[in-house]
Each structure stands twice: as C-alpha cells, then as structure tokens.
C-alpha cells in the first residue's frame, strides 16, 4: 500500500486527465469553457486535498526499485505543482482559443504530472523521463495558439532550445553511468569524491540542462521570447511551476550526488546566481512589454532563489524552498493580472496600463501587492523570502553575494515601481476611465483573491511555511 501511496497524486492526476478526455466529446460548445475549466481546477484542488490527507510521506523511502524517493521534498513540490496548475487552469478559462480545448487542460495536467515525478526522481533515467514528460506538454502549450505567429514562434523556440539543452544533459547522464556504473542518485556520491576532469565535465553538462529549466545565466535568453509569445497563463505556469521543478532537481541532484564537490559547485553557482540576477534586472529596466519585463524579472528571481542553494546548508535549502513558495504565489498573481487585463485591453504594453486604478481599483491593488512582493517589500511574501536567502548567504560567508542581491533588489524596486506609477498615476487618453471598466470573470476573482491572501499570509505568518520548507530541506542534509 505504501508504494501506491507514494504516487497517489500522480495516479489521481492521470485519472483526472482521463476524465477530461472522456468528458470532452460529450460537451456542447456553450458549456465547454465552464465545465472543462472548473473540472480541471476543482479536480486539482481535490487531488491537493486528498494528497495532503492521505499521501503524506513518513520516513524517506526509495520506492519502485529506487526510481522514486518518497519524501517531504518531493511531496512539498508536488503540492506546489498541483496548486500552480489549479490556478493556471482557472486563468486558462478566459483565454480565447485555449479555454474551449480539452487538449490545453490535458497538457497542463500532463506537465504537472511530469513535474511531480521530477521532484521525486531518485534515478537518472527516471529523472530524464520526467523532465521530458514535463517539457513536451509545455512546448505544445507555448505554441498552442496556432493562428498566432508569436505563439507559434514561442513554442518552437522553446522546443529547439529545450531539446538541445536536454540532449546535452542526457549526454552528461550517460557519462555518469559510463564511469560509475549506476544511475541511482543515492549511490553516486562515492564515485564523485574528488574534483577531476570527468566530474567537472559531467557537472557542466548536467548543469546546462537544469540551468535552462530555471533560466540561469547564460541559458536565460529564451525566456523573454517564449513568455512574450505564449498565452499569458502558460507563461505564468512556465515561470513558476516549471522553474520550481528545475530547482528541486538541482537541489536533489547536486546535494545528494555531489556532496564532496560542494565547495566547487557552490562557487560556480554563486557566480551564475550573481550574473543571473544582474542580467535579468538590468535588462528588465528597459522593457516596454509587461510580459517581457516579467520574464526578465523571473530570470532575476531565479538568481535570488539560487543564493540559498549556494549557501549549502539546511537553512539555505529551506530558504530557497521558502523563496519558491513566495515566488510561485506572487508570479502567478502577476501573470494572472496580465492575463485578465490583456484580455480586456488587447495589449501587453506597459503603457496600456494607464489609468488602471480608476478602471478597476481592486485589480490595481492586486498589482500593487504582487509587484511589491516581487520587489521584496513587507508585509508581502517576497520580503521574508529575500531576507531568508540573504541570511543564509551571510551565515556561510557569502557576504559579497548578499550584497549583490541587495543591490539587485534596488534595481528591481525601480522597475516595479515604474509599472505601479503607470497604473496609479497616469491616466488614459481622454481621461474617461469610467467609460472603460475592466471586468473580471469569476475564475479570476477566485484565483486572484486566493493568491493575494496567500502572498500576505506567507509574508506575515511566515513560520508555518518555513517549517514546511525546513522539513523538506531536512531530507537533503
């Protein structure tokens, strides 16, 4: 029973996907959007609840011949993916040409399934399969709007770069197997006990694939083009769940398989983290399109989250996980708002947001909350998350990295505030905002309210969330 329990969320996800497929042919056109959207979101929430009640791991356990590890780390990230997918499904409901297609919801579920396997993988083969299982649905979702050139370009770009980096990573995996004779992550550490040409080479190859996933410098360049072209909720899902999946793999793979080389790889990651933050923030400064701006900002956030991994300690890993909790909530909210607004305004230019606070003051307030949380302001989640990663960095002597992070936060604050200025200060041409209200549909009201409450809860009552993150980090060290 316990082995089935370990893949309970995955089984349920598969069942939900099948239900969606079966439902699809029986639905009349007028009801498709409502039924498909609510069934997917509701089903995901139910899976979330059932997993939390019945699927909780006890002592860490290798299951299915060592393919998966049933522990808090994997379980917690599975919950993140279920949550992000549920929120994204609600966002899907208001994107034309996406909301009536069962395939879109199905691909979302398939990606979530792949991610939760990524989080639990304890074997290189399983890991590779899980990564592909995640990536392929996401390539399709990115290019889902086939009549839209930008969306097609986005999907195709994502596919090309994704396939390339995954291949490089696969090559790294094969070298690992060739030299160590094992594919189990938990058996690798003894084979990589000292730094030599082989371990350095393997590390670089594997890192390439994972750096792409989390958009770490220098493999960050795809993100803006892909996010800009993809439907906004897909971009939101990519920038949160997919990135978190990359992080959990980095945590597990590097900490578990290469502990003896930690001094070497933390140095590399520290430099990459600093560059990622700086490049992301500096380019974000000049963006005129909000999706591109958020893409660069999410690159920068990958850099901040990496600081905790660089710190290489329980506190560091916990703070990275905590960072991801805050970041998932915040960035989903940001992309949700972009979806909701873009639908009415028909534009993703930042200048289109003029007068938003007079057109819909609640949506403007939501934007304020999520952007200030991204900037790292209390009482929102982003503040505590940033302070935690900096605390972890300073504990382990990475004062320079904390300083780089702090300087980057200042740059970040500047461009986030510039957007809020447009929202609150500038007015529409003609100053007749009352004539152009921005209506929100029910799925948006529900999902955005939920996210706002989440952002504030994480920012104010941070201890319980941190304890979760810490419980997961305990599985690593």
């Amino acid at each position: 029973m316990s082995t089935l329990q370990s893949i309970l969320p995955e089984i349920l996800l598969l069942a939900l996907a099948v239900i969606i497929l079966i439902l699809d042919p029986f639905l009349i056109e007028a009801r498709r959007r409502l039924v498909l959207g609510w069934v997917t979101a509701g089903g995901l929430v139910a899976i979330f609840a059932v997993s939390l009640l019945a699927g909780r791991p006890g002592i860490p356990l290798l299951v299915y011949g060592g393919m998966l590890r049933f522990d808090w780390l994997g379980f917690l990230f599975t919950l993140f993916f279920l949550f992000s997918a549920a929120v994204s499904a609600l966002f899907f409901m208001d994107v034309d040409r996406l909301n009536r297609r069962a395939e879109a919801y199905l691909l979302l579920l398939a990606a979530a399934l792949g991610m939760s396997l990524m989080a639990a993988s304890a074997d290189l083969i399983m890991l590779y399969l899980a990564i592909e299982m995640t990536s392929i649905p996401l390539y399709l979702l990115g290019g889902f709007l086939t009549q839209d050139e930008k969306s097609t370009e986005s999907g195709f770009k994502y596919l090309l770069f994704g396939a390339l980096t995954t291949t490089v990573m696969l090559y790294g995996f094969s070298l690992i197997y060739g030299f160590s004779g094992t594919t189990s992550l938990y058996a690798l550490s003894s084979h990589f006990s000292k730094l030599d040409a082989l371990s350095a080479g393997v590390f670089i190859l594997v890192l390439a694939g994972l750096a792409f996933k989390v958009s770490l410098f220098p493999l960050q360049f795809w993100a803006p083009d892909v996010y800009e072209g993809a439907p906004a909720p897909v971009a939101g899902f990519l920038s949160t769940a997919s990135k978190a999946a990359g992080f959990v793999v980095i945590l597990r793979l590097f900490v578990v398989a290469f502990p003896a080389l930690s001094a070497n790889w933390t140095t590399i990651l520290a430099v990459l983290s600093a560059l990622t933050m700086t490049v992301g923030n500096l380019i974000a400064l000049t963006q005129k399109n909000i999706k591109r701006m958020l893409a660069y900002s999410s690159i920068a956030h990958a850099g901040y989250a990496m600081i905790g991994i660089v710190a290489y300690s329980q506190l560091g890993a916990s703070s990275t996980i905590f960072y991801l909790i805050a970041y998932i909530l915040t960035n989903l909210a940001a992309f949700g708002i972009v979806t909701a607004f873009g639908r009415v305004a028909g534009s993703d230019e930042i200048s289109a947001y003029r007068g938003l606070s007079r057109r819909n003051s609640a949506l403007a307030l939501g934007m304020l909350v999520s952007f200030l949380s991204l900037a790292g302001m209390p009482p929102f989640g982003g503040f505590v998350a940033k302070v935690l990663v900096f605390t972890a960095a300073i504990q382990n002597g990475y004062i320079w990295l904390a300083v780089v992070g702090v300087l980057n936060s200042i740059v970040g604050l500047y461009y986030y505030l510039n957007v809020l200025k447009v929202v609150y200060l500038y007015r529409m041409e003609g100053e007749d905002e009352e004539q152009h209200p921005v209506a929100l549909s029910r799925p948006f009201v529900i999902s955005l309210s939920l996210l706002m409450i989440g952002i504030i809860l994480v920012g104010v009552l941070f201890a319980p969330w941190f304890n979760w993150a810490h419980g997961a980090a305990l599985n690593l060290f």
Partner: protein
Amino acid sequence: MHFPILSVIVFTPVCAALLMLLYKPDQKKAVRITALVTAGVVLLLSTIVYFSYNKAVAGYQFVEKYSWMPFLGISLHFGVDGLSAPLVLLTGIVMLTGVMISWGIEDRPREFFAFLFFLASGVLGVFASLDLFMLFFFYEIAVFPMYLLISIWGWIKTREYAAMKLTLYLFIGSVVALVGALAMYWQSGQHTFDMLVLEHANFPVSFQNVWFPFVFLGFAVLGGLFPFHNWSPDGHVAAPTAVSMFHAGVLMKLGAFAALRVGIMLLPEGAKTWHWVIMGLALVNIVYGALIASVQTDFKYVIGFSSVSHMGLVMMGFATLTREGLTGAGLQMFSHGVMTALFFAAVGMVYDRAHTRDIPKLGGMAGPLPLVAVGVIIGSLVSMGMPGFSGFIAEFPIFLGIWKTQWVVAVVAALSIVITASYVLLVVRRVFFGRMPAELEGHIRPINAFDKIALVLLCAIMVGLGLFPALMVPWVQTGVQHVLSLLGGA
C-alpha cells in the same frame, strides 16, 4: 497578561486601512470619518501609553512578546522606553492633525488614507519593536507607501522624480543596514533577533568598527544626514500636505531613532570610533542646511531645508555620546516633529489658497489667515530655539553636549541659530505681513474648523512643552540613561 496596548496601537491603522479599501470608491465621507476616528483612537492610546509609562522604573515597558519564527529566533516583541514613548505619541499627534488637514482631498481619498495608514502602522511598529527583524519589517512598510502618496497626490511638477528619488534613497539605506543587521545576527551566535539580547552580545570591537557605518549610515539616510539628505527637500516639497507632515514630522525621526537603536545601542564601540565622522557630517547638515534654506524662494523648500538643518542637530546630539547631547536629541526629535508638522500644514494652507509658494509673490496673509500667521510665528520661535518654547529645551542641551565634546564644533554649529533666525523671520514677514499682491486680494478663503483645531493643537504642544519641560524631559532621561549604560556608563 495586561492589555496588549502597543499591538493595538500598531495594528489599528493597518486594520482601518483594510477596512477603508472595502468601501466603495464614492463613499468619501465614510472614508474620512473612519480615518479621523482611527487617528483619534491611536492618539488616545498613545497618550495613555505615554502618561502611564513609569519613569521611576524606567527600562522597556508595556512589553509584549509573541514567538513568531522560533527557528531563527524572530519574535513579535513590542515595548517602549523613555526615548520611544514620546515618538509614539508624536506619531499619534501627526496622524490626527494630518487627517484633519487632508479632509478636503477629492482624488481617491480611500486610497490616500489607506496608504497613509499603512505608513503609520509601519512607523509605529518601528518605534515599538524590540526585535531587529520586525524593526526592518515595519521600517520597509513605512517606506513604500510614500512612493504612491507622493507620486499620486503630490505636486504635479516634481512628484514623479521626487517620489522615485526618495524611495530609492530610503530603500538603499535600509538594505545596507539590513546586511549589517544580518551580520550582527550571525556574529552574536545567539540565534535571536531580540535586541534586548543583542544589546549585551559584546560584539568584538573590530566587528563593531566595520559594521557600525553600514548600520548607522543606512538608517541615517532616512534621518537626512549629509550627504544622503538630498532626497528630503525634494520629497517634502513634492508631497501633499499631510504626507509632508508625516514625512518630515515622523519619518525622519524614524531614521534617526533606528540609527540610535540599532547603530549606537547595539554597536556602542563602533559608535565611539566613528562619532567624530558623524559629528562632522551633522555639522555640515546644520550649517549648510540653514544656509541653503536662507536662499530659497519657495516657501516649502525653506521648510524642507530647515528640516535638514534641524535633523542635523539630532544627529549631532547622538554623535556627542554624552548625556546632555542625547537628551537634547531625544527632545529635538519630538519638538522638531511637531514644529515641522505645523510648518508644512501652514504652507499647505497658504498654497491651497494662493496657488503659489513663491515667497516674492506672497504677502499680507496675516489679514485673512490670522491663526496661520500665529502658528507660523510660534513655529519660527521654536525653530530658533527661543526660551519658553519646546525648541529651547531641546537645542540647549544639545549645544551643552557639543561644547563638552568639542567647543569649536559648538561655536560653528551655533552659527546656524543666527542663520535660522534670520531666514524664518524674513519669511514670516514677507509671507504674512506687508502688502498683499493685488491678484490675491479677495481670493483668500478663511481656513476651516479642522484646520484651526490642528493648528491650535500643534501650537499648544510646543508652548506647553516649552513652559513645562517636566512633561517630557524625565521620560527622555530614563531612555538616555540606558543608552549611556550600554556605552559604558560614560
């Protein structure tokens, strides 16, 4: 378990802000009344705290402690001492008068008061926090609403520039201080952010010497210390009246207070090493601020630069590290807070009616606005440190302290009193007396009842404190005693 009065004070404004955001945008009257009632409640509670603070016992009182994040030793820990109790009271006063003065705001008053009250909660939280992490938490909350308040409701010509400049300056200062605070956290080895524990952490002298400038200067940015004062006059001028009052009246004290609480009190040896540098910078503040103020032609810039000069006196008082200097600085924070709130309120009233702040274009305002003229005259007397007003009891000990440390500095700093007297009196004469320009004749409406109450309240406090220093000096002295004991009983 006593009534958690400090938590109530800190969280009342933010709860009111959330409540206001639930109103409909056109329920302007309900918003204003909620704001007024909330500010009244906060003032009432902070007055109770102030007067029931037991000076004989001293130390931190009304202490509340709730474990917030045990893993890192973060707790929600409130308490006031003789230095922070007056500042909590000051915040209550400025909140109430600020709401009264902003009664007439027509553009989105709901958002205006909500942001203002978020800010107020942040400010109160910093004054009451005894936990370093929470102090930063509230400090940042006090910073960001400023951006919106200034950029949306500010003076149209400079608001975007000034708001961004101010926010970035303050944010840079706070994050620099934050790095210092985290360094302290790990250095102490106690795994706690509790400042009462960190006060006795006995950091090595070399550590203190390295990190003191980060922490002190980081906060001193908000205190307006030269050369980081640059944001402040622009910010004051661009801000709407109530925000200028809050800003100069309370927020700058926040910086000075945090610099004292975190910089000097936790890193006393560092303070001893660096106090000459701080003195030098503060001296520039005092004299240079006064000189610049004396050549301004914009009424609001005059007050903005005079704030820089007066906050220099606070920093100077800190830097002396003497009983007299610190006591004076503590009193100056309160006295200047009230005075500058009054000045900005008065400037706002004049500007709302004359639609200009250009001093040469004003004149004869005492005729239609007699109460404003009286208020500004009282404020000017306070500002020059005239005996019988609160400015005197604050500035006199500061100068005593400076003299005790280095008499040359005292002589140079005293120049500022002469300069201040000359420019405030000149401004009073030009704005309120003489002939009113023809184009203003007949356009000056009288001020309303709320404006009058606010002015009278602020004036009464300044005169009352000047005549009865015993209403505040003993409080501040108990606080200073504690600081001195941390400095090694000097």
